[in-house]
Protein backbone atom coordinates (compact mmCIF):
# COMPACT_ATOMS: atom_id res chain seq x y z
CA UNK A 1 0.00 0.00 0.00
CA UNK A 2 1.32 3.42 -0.81
CA UNK A 3 1.28 5.90 2.00
CA UNK A 4 0.42 9.49 1.24
CA UNK A 5 3.64 11.41 1.30
CA UNK A 6 3.51 13.96 4.06
CA UNK A 7 6.44 16.28 4.35
CA UNK A 8 6.94 18.30 7.47
CA UNK A 9 7.03 21.63 5.71
CA UNK A 10 3.63 21.04 4.26
CA UNK A 11 1.83 20.84 7.53
CA UNK A 12 0.79 24.44 7.06
CA UNK A 13 -0.60 23.82 3.61
CA UNK A 14 -3.92 22.21 2.95
CA UNK A 15 -2.98 19.21 0.87
CA UNK A 16 -6.33 18.47 -0.69
CA UNK A 17 -6.81 21.95 -1.98
CA UNK A 18 -3.32 22.14 -3.34
CA UNK A 19 -3.87 18.91 -5.19
CA UNK A 20 -7.12 20.16 -6.68
CA UNK A 21 -5.44 23.33 -7.71
CA UNK A 22 -2.63 21.54 -9.45
CA UNK A 23 -5.05 19.30 -11.29
CA UNK A 24 -6.91 22.33 -12.53
CA UNK A 25 -3.67 23.99 -13.51
CA UNK A 26 -2.67 20.95 -15.49
CA UNK A 27 -6.01 20.91 -17.29
CA UNK A 28 -5.65 24.57 -18.02
CA UNK A 29 -2.23 24.09 -19.50
CA UNK A 30 -3.43 21.25 -21.69
CA UNK A 31 -6.18 23.48 -23.05
CA UNK A 32 -3.63 26.18 -23.62
CA UNK A 33 -1.30 23.98 -25.58
CA UNK A 34 -4.18 22.54 -27.60
CA UNK A 35 -5.24 26.01 -28.59
CA UNK A 36 -1.68 26.98 -29.36
CA UNK A 37 -1.35 23.96 -31.62
CA UNK A 38 -4.55 24.73 -33.45
CA UNK A 39 -3.56 28.34 -33.98
CA UNK A 40 -0.08 27.45 -35.15
CA UNK A 41 -1.42 24.79 -37.47
CA UNK A 42 -4.17 26.79 -39.08
CA UNK A 43 -2.09 29.86 -39.62
CA UNK A 44 0.59 27.79 -41.23
CA UNK A 45 3.42 28.87 -39.01
CA UNK A 46 6.78 27.54 -39.70
CA UNK A 47 9.57 26.31 -37.50
CA UNK A 48 10.62 28.50 -34.65
CA UNK A 49 7.71 30.89 -34.95
CA UNK A 50 5.42 28.04 -34.02
CA UNK A 51 7.34 27.31 -30.86
CA UNK A 52 7.25 31.02 -30.14
CA UNK A 53 3.47 30.88 -30.33
CA UNK A 54 3.46 28.05 -27.84
CA UNK A 55 5.57 30.00 -25.38
CA UNK A 56 3.49 33.11 -25.93
CA UNK A 57 0.22 31.33 -25.25
CA UNK A 58 1.73 29.64 -22.23
CA UNK A 59 2.64 33.02 -20.80
CA UNK A 60 -0.78 34.41 -21.63
CA UNK A 61 -2.36 31.53 -19.74
CA UNK A 62 -0.13 32.24 -16.78
CA UNK A 63 -1.04 35.90 -16.93
CA UNK A 64 -4.75 35.11 -16.95
CA UNK A 65 -4.20 32.81 -14.01
CA UNK A 66 -2.46 35.61 -12.16
CA UNK A 67 -5.32 37.99 -12.82
CA UNK A 68 -7.81 35.39 -11.65
CA UNK A 69 -5.90 34.84 -8.47
CA UNK A 70 -5.62 38.57 -7.91
CA UNK A 71 -1.86 38.09 -7.88
CA UNK A 72 -1.91 36.33 -4.53
CA UNK A 73 -0.03 33.24 -5.55
CA UNK A 74 0.72 31.98 -2.08
CA UNK A 75 -2.91 31.39 -1.35
CA UNK A 76 -3.34 28.96 -4.17
CA UNK A 77 -0.02 27.41 -4.97
CA UNK A 78 3.26 26.77 -3.32
CA UNK A 79 5.29 29.31 -5.20
CA UNK A 80 4.99 31.58 -8.17
CA UNK A 81 7.49 29.51 -10.09
CA UNK A 82 5.28 26.47 -9.63
CA UNK A 83 2.18 28.23 -10.76
CA UNK A 84 3.50 30.19 -13.69
CA UNK A 85 6.57 28.71 -15.19
CA UNK A 86 7.18 25.21 -14.10
CA UNK A 87 5.35 22.99 -16.54
CA UNK A 88 6.39 24.48 -19.82
CA UNK A 89 8.17 21.44 -21.15
CA UNK A 90 5.61 18.81 -20.34
CA UNK A 91 2.97 19.94 -22.77
CA UNK A 92 5.39 20.71 -25.54
CA UNK A 93 4.96 17.32 -27.14
CA UNK A 94 1.22 17.72 -27.06
CA UNK A 95 1.58 21.03 -28.80
CA UNK A 96 3.80 19.50 -31.44
CA UNK A 97 1.32 16.75 -32.11
CA UNK A 98 -1.63 19.08 -32.49
CA UNK A 99 0.44 21.44 -34.58
CA UNK A 100 1.46 18.72 -37.00
CA UNK A 101 -2.07 17.39 -37.26
CA UNK A 102 -3.72 20.70 -37.92
CA UNK A 103 -1.00 21.95 -40.17
CA UNK A 104 -1.47 18.92 -42.33
CA UNK A 105 -5.23 19.00 -42.29
CA UNK A 106 -5.56 22.63 -43.19
CA UNK A 107 -2.64 23.50 -45.33
CA UNK A 108 -1.41 20.49 -47.10
CA UNK A 109 -3.85 17.70 -47.44
Amino acid at each position, binding site marked *: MEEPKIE*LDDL*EVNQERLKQNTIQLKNLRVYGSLNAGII*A*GILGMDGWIGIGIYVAIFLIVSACLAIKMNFKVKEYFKSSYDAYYSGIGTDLLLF*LMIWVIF*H*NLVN*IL
Partner: protein
Amino acid sequence: MSDILIDDRIRDWVFLPIIIVMFMIQMFRGLLTKYMDNRKTAQKVTSKAQVAEMIDKNITQQSQRLARLHGLLPDQSFKMKRAYLCDREQGILTKASQKPAKDPMQSMSMMNPVAMADMLKQNLSGIVFMALQYQWVSYFFSGFVIGKVPFPLTQKFRTMLQRGVDVQNLDVRYISSISIYFVLLFGGLQKIQQLMFGDDTDEFVDDTQMQMQMQMMGMPTMPSFGQQNDPGKLFIAERTRLEGVKHTFELNKSSDKALKSLKRFLIQ
Protein backbone atom coordinates in the same frame (compact mmCIF):
# COMPACT_ATOMS: atom_id res chain seq x y z
CA MET B 1 11.89 22.30 -52.97
CA SER B 2 8.69 22.40 -54.85
CA ASP B 3 5.52 21.70 -53.05
CA ILE B 4 3.99 18.30 -53.40
CA LEU B 5 0.29 18.07 -53.91
CA ILE B 6 -1.18 15.32 -51.85
CA ASP B 7 -4.32 13.62 -52.95
CA ASP B 8 -7.48 14.27 -51.02
CA ARG B 9 -8.07 10.61 -50.63
CA ILE B 10 -4.97 10.26 -48.53
CA ARG B 11 -6.45 12.60 -46.05
CA ASP B 12 -9.78 10.88 -46.01
CA TRP B 13 -8.63 7.35 -45.89
CA VAL B 14 -5.27 7.44 -44.16
CA PHE B 15 -4.66 10.48 -42.05
CA LEU B 16 -7.99 10.75 -40.31
CA PRO B 17 -8.44 7.01 -39.84
CA ILE B 18 -5.06 6.68 -38.17
CA ILE B 19 -5.89 9.43 -35.72
CA ILE B 20 -9.35 8.13 -35.00
CA VAL B 21 -8.25 4.56 -34.57
CA MET B 22 -5.37 5.44 -32.28
CA PHE B 23 -7.57 7.58 -30.17
CA MET B 24 -10.16 4.87 -29.81
CA ILE B 25 -7.56 2.29 -28.94
CA GLN B 26 -6.27 4.63 -26.28
CA MET B 27 -9.72 4.96 -24.76
CA PHE B 28 -10.28 1.27 -24.97
CA ARG B 29 -7.01 0.67 -23.19
CA GLY B 30 -8.06 3.03 -20.44
CA LEU B 31 -11.30 1.17 -19.97
CA LEU B 32 -9.46 -2.12 -19.98
CA THR B 33 -7.10 -0.99 -17.27
CA LYS B 34 -9.98 0.21 -15.21
CA TYR B 35 -11.78 -3.06 -15.62
CA MET B 36 -8.75 -5.07 -14.66
CA ASP B 37 -8.05 -2.88 -11.69
CA ASN B 38 -11.54 -3.41 -10.42
CA ARG B 39 -11.05 -7.09 -10.50
CA LYS B 40 -7.79 -7.07 -8.68
CA THR B 41 -8.09 -8.70 -5.29
CA ALA B 42 -5.71 -8.49 -2.40
CA GLN B 43 -2.68 -10.65 -2.86
CA LYS B 44 -2.44 -13.59 -0.58
CA VAL B 45 0.91 -14.42 0.83
CA THR B 46 1.78 -17.77 -0.57
CA SER B 47 5.28 -18.66 0.40
CA LYS B 48 7.80 -18.22 3.12
CA ALA B 49 10.13 -16.34 0.86
CA GLN B 50 7.38 -13.87 0.22
CA VAL B 51 6.81 -13.41 3.93
CA ALA B 52 10.48 -12.61 4.36
CA GLU B 53 10.27 -10.14 1.49
CA MET B 54 7.28 -8.45 3.06
CA ILE B 55 9.07 -8.17 6.35
CA ASP B 56 12.06 -6.53 4.69
CA LYS B 57 9.84 -4.15 2.83
CA ASN B 58 8.06 -3.16 6.00
CA ILE B 59 11.32 -2.61 7.81
CA THR B 60 12.57 -0.26 5.11
CA GLN B 61 9.25 1.53 5.08
CA GLN B 62 9.40 1.98 8.81
CA SER B 63 12.88 3.40 8.78
CA GLN B 64 12.08 5.72 5.90
CA ARG B 65 8.99 6.97 7.62
CA LEU B 66 10.99 7.64 10.74
CA ALA B 67 13.60 9.55 8.79
CA ARG B 68 10.96 11.66 7.11
CA LEU B 69 8.63 12.46 9.97
CA HIS B 70 11.00 12.64 12.87
CA GLY B 71 9.83 16.11 13.77
CA LEU B 72 6.51 14.84 14.95
CA LEU B 73 8.05 12.87 17.76
CA PRO B 74 9.35 14.19 21.06
CA ASP B 75 12.98 13.58 21.86
CA GLN B 76 12.62 10.52 24.01
CA SER B 77 10.33 8.71 21.59
CA PHE B 78 12.53 9.42 18.66
CA LYS B 79 15.60 8.17 20.43
CA MET B 80 13.83 4.99 21.44
CA LYS B 81 12.61 4.31 17.94
CA ARG B 82 15.94 5.03 16.44
CA ALA B 83 17.71 2.76 18.90
CA TYR B 84 15.24 -0.01 18.15
CA LEU B 85 16.15 0.21 14.50
CA CYS B 86 19.78 1.21 14.51
CA ASP B 87 21.43 -0.34 17.51
CA ARG B 88 24.74 -1.84 16.52
CA GLU B 89 24.08 -5.21 18.12
CA GLN B 90 20.41 -5.64 18.51
CA GLY B 91 18.76 -3.21 16.15
CA ILE B 92 16.42 -4.52 13.53
CA LEU B 93 18.33 -2.96 10.67
CA THR B 94 21.58 -4.47 11.80
CA LYS B 95 20.02 -7.89 12.10
CA ALA B 96 18.37 -7.62 8.74
CA SER B 97 21.58 -6.58 7.04
CA GLN B 98 23.34 -9.67 8.28
CA LYS B 99 21.14 -12.03 6.37
CA PRO B 100 22.83 -13.59 3.38
CA ALA B 101 22.36 -11.99 0.00
CA LYS B 102 19.41 -13.33 -1.88
CA ASP B 103 19.89 -15.52 -4.84
CA PRO B 104 19.00 -13.38 -7.85
CA MET B 105 16.99 -16.13 -9.46
CA GLN B 106 14.95 -16.59 -6.38
CA SER B 107 14.47 -12.97 -5.69
CA MET B 108 12.73 -12.41 -8.97
CA SER B 109 9.07 -12.49 -8.42
CA MET B 110 8.52 -14.76 -11.34
CA MET B 111 7.84 -17.46 -8.80
CA ASN B 112 4.79 -15.68 -7.63
CA PRO B 113 1.87 -16.36 -9.94
CA VAL B 114 -0.07 -13.34 -8.86
CA ALA B 115 2.79 -11.00 -9.60
CA MET B 116 3.31 -12.66 -12.94
CA ALA B 117 -0.32 -12.14 -13.81
CA ASP B 118 0.09 -8.50 -12.88
CA MET B 119 3.06 -8.15 -15.14
CA LEU B 120 1.18 -9.78 -17.97
CA LYS B 121 -1.70 -7.40 -17.54
CA GLN B 122 0.64 -4.45 -17.57
CA ASN B 123 2.32 -5.70 -20.68
CA LEU B 124 -0.98 -6.38 -22.36
CA SER B 125 -2.37 -2.97 -21.76
CA GLY B 126 0.80 -1.28 -22.84
CA ILE B 127 3.19 -2.93 -25.19
CA VAL B 128 0.88 -5.25 -27.03
CA PHE B 129 -1.37 -2.47 -28.22
CA MET B 130 1.59 -0.43 -29.31
CA ALA B 131 3.03 -3.29 -31.30
CA LEU B 132 -0.36 -4.05 -32.83
CA GLN B 133 -0.85 -0.49 -33.94
CA TYR B 134 2.61 -0.31 -35.38
CA GLN B 135 2.05 -3.44 -37.41
CA TRP B 136 -1.31 -2.22 -38.61
CA VAL B 137 -0.03 1.15 -39.70
CA SER B 138 3.07 -0.15 -41.36
CA TYR B 139 1.23 -2.91 -43.19
CA PHE B 140 -1.60 -0.93 -44.61
CA PHE B 141 -0.21 2.52 -44.96
CA SER B 142 3.37 2.20 -46.00
CA GLY B 143 5.00 3.46 -49.12
CA PHE B 144 3.60 6.92 -49.53
CA VAL B 145 3.91 10.37 -48.16
CA ILE B 146 1.22 11.47 -45.82
CA GLY B 147 1.97 15.01 -44.77
CA LYS B 148 4.52 17.57 -43.88
CA VAL B 149 6.00 18.64 -40.61
CA PRO B 150 6.03 22.38 -40.06
CA PHE B 151 9.58 22.65 -38.85
CA PRO B 152 12.86 22.06 -40.59
CA LEU B 153 14.75 18.91 -39.74
CA THR B 154 18.17 17.53 -40.49
CA GLN B 155 18.89 14.66 -42.80
CA LYS B 156 19.40 12.32 -39.90
CA PHE B 157 15.68 12.08 -39.43
CA ARG B 158 15.10 10.86 -42.91
CA THR B 159 15.26 7.18 -42.12
CA MET B 160 12.93 7.56 -39.20
CA LEU B 161 10.36 9.77 -40.80
CA GLN B 162 10.31 8.51 -44.34
CA ARG B 163 10.33 4.81 -43.86
CA GLY B 164 9.08 3.09 -46.96
CA VAL B 165 9.35 6.10 -49.20
CA ASP B 166 12.32 5.63 -51.44
CA VAL B 167 12.58 8.95 -53.17
CA GLN B 168 16.04 10.21 -52.47
CA ASN B 169 15.90 13.91 -52.60
CA LEU B 170 12.55 14.40 -51.04
CA ASP B 171 12.47 17.12 -48.45
CA VAL B 172 12.80 15.65 -44.99
CA ARG B 173 9.70 17.54 -44.08
CA TYR B 174 7.51 15.10 -45.94
CA ILE B 175 6.70 12.27 -43.64
CA SER B 176 5.33 8.81 -44.06
CA SER B 177 2.48 7.37 -42.12
CA ILE B 178 4.57 5.57 -39.53
CA SER B 179 5.90 8.89 -38.37
CA ILE B 180 2.43 10.22 -37.76
CA TYR B 181 1.96 7.14 -35.62
CA PHE B 182 5.02 8.08 -33.60
CA VAL B 183 3.96 11.67 -33.28
CA LEU B 184 0.59 10.59 -31.94
CA LEU B 185 2.16 8.08 -29.62
CA PHE B 186 4.60 10.44 -28.02
CA GLY B 187 2.41 13.45 -28.21
CA GLY B 188 0.10 12.25 -25.56
CA LEU B 189 -3.30 11.16 -26.63
CA GLN B 190 -3.57 10.30 -22.97
CA LYS B 191 -3.75 13.87 -21.97
CA ILE B 192 -6.58 14.65 -24.28
CA GLN B 193 -8.37 11.58 -23.09
CA GLN B 194 -7.88 12.63 -19.50
CA LEU B 195 -9.14 16.03 -20.32
CA MET B 196 -12.31 14.74 -21.83
CA PHE B 197 -13.10 11.74 -19.74
CA GLY B 198 -10.94 11.76 -16.68
CA ASP B 199 -12.72 13.82 -14.14
CA ASP B 200 -12.29 11.26 -11.42
CA THR B 201 -9.24 11.74 -9.32
CA ASP B 202 -7.14 9.08 -10.93
CA GLU B 203 -4.25 11.10 -12.13
CA PHE B 204 -2.50 8.43 -14.06
CA VAL B 205 -3.86 5.52 -16.03
CA ASP B 206 -0.84 3.98 -17.64
CA ASP B 207 2.25 5.47 -19.03
CA THR B 208 3.50 3.80 -22.16
CA GLN B 209 6.27 6.30 -22.53
CA MET B 210 7.67 5.51 -19.15
CA GLN B 211 7.35 1.81 -19.81
CA MET B 212 9.06 2.16 -23.13
CA GLN B 213 11.92 4.08 -21.62
CA MET B 214 12.33 1.52 -18.94
CA GLN B 215 12.36 -1.27 -21.47
CA MET B 216 14.92 0.54 -23.51
CA MET B 217 17.17 0.89 -20.56
CA GLY B 218 17.04 -2.84 -20.11
CA MET B 219 15.20 -2.95 -16.82
CA PRO B 220 12.07 -5.05 -16.88
CA THR B 221 9.07 -3.47 -15.26
CA MET B 222 8.92 -5.32 -11.98
CA PRO B 223 5.87 -4.86 -9.87
CA SER B 224 7.54 -5.29 -6.50
CA PHE B 225 10.27 -3.28 -4.94
CA GLY B 226 13.61 -4.23 -3.52
CA GLN B 227 14.76 -6.84 -5.98
CA GLN B 228 18.37 -6.26 -5.26
CA ASN B 229 21.04 -8.81 -4.93
CA ASP B 230 22.37 -7.38 -1.72
CA PRO B 231 19.70 -6.21 0.67
CA GLY B 232 22.30 -5.90 3.39
CA LYS B 233 23.73 -2.79 1.80
CA LEU B 234 20.28 -1.28 1.61
CA PHE B 235 19.74 -1.74 5.31
CA ILE B 236 23.14 -0.39 6.20
CA ALA B 237 22.47 2.66 4.07
CA GLU B 238 19.18 3.18 5.87
CA ARG B 239 20.92 2.84 9.19
CA THR B 240 23.55 5.44 8.40
CA ARG B 241 20.85 7.74 7.18
CA LEU B 242 18.87 7.38 10.37
CA GLU B 243 21.90 7.85 12.52
CA GLY B 244 22.64 11.09 10.73
CA VAL B 245 19.22 12.60 11.28
CA LYS B 246 19.27 15.75 13.32
CA HIS B 247 16.16 15.66 15.34
CA THR B 248 14.14 18.61 16.57
CA PHE B 249 10.68 18.34 17.92
CA GLU B 250 8.36 20.51 15.89
CA LEU B 251 6.20 21.36 18.83
CA ASN B 252 8.93 23.65 20.08
CA LYS B 253 8.67 25.72 16.97
CA SER B 254 4.92 25.55 16.79
CA SER B 255 4.17 28.70 18.71
CA ASP B 256 6.34 30.70 16.32
CA LYS B 257 4.66 29.11 13.33
CA ALA B 258 1.22 29.83 14.73
CA LEU B 259 2.18 33.43 15.27
CA LYS B 260 3.38 33.70 11.68
CA SER B 261 0.17 32.19 10.28
CA LEU B 262 -1.95 34.44 12.41
CA LYS B 263 -0.08 37.49 11.25
CA ARG B 264 -0.43 36.44 7.64
CA PHE B 265 -4.12 35.92 8.14
CA LEU B 266 -4.68 39.23 9.86
CA ILE B 267 -2.81 41.21 7.28
CA GLN B 268 -5.22 40.32 4.48
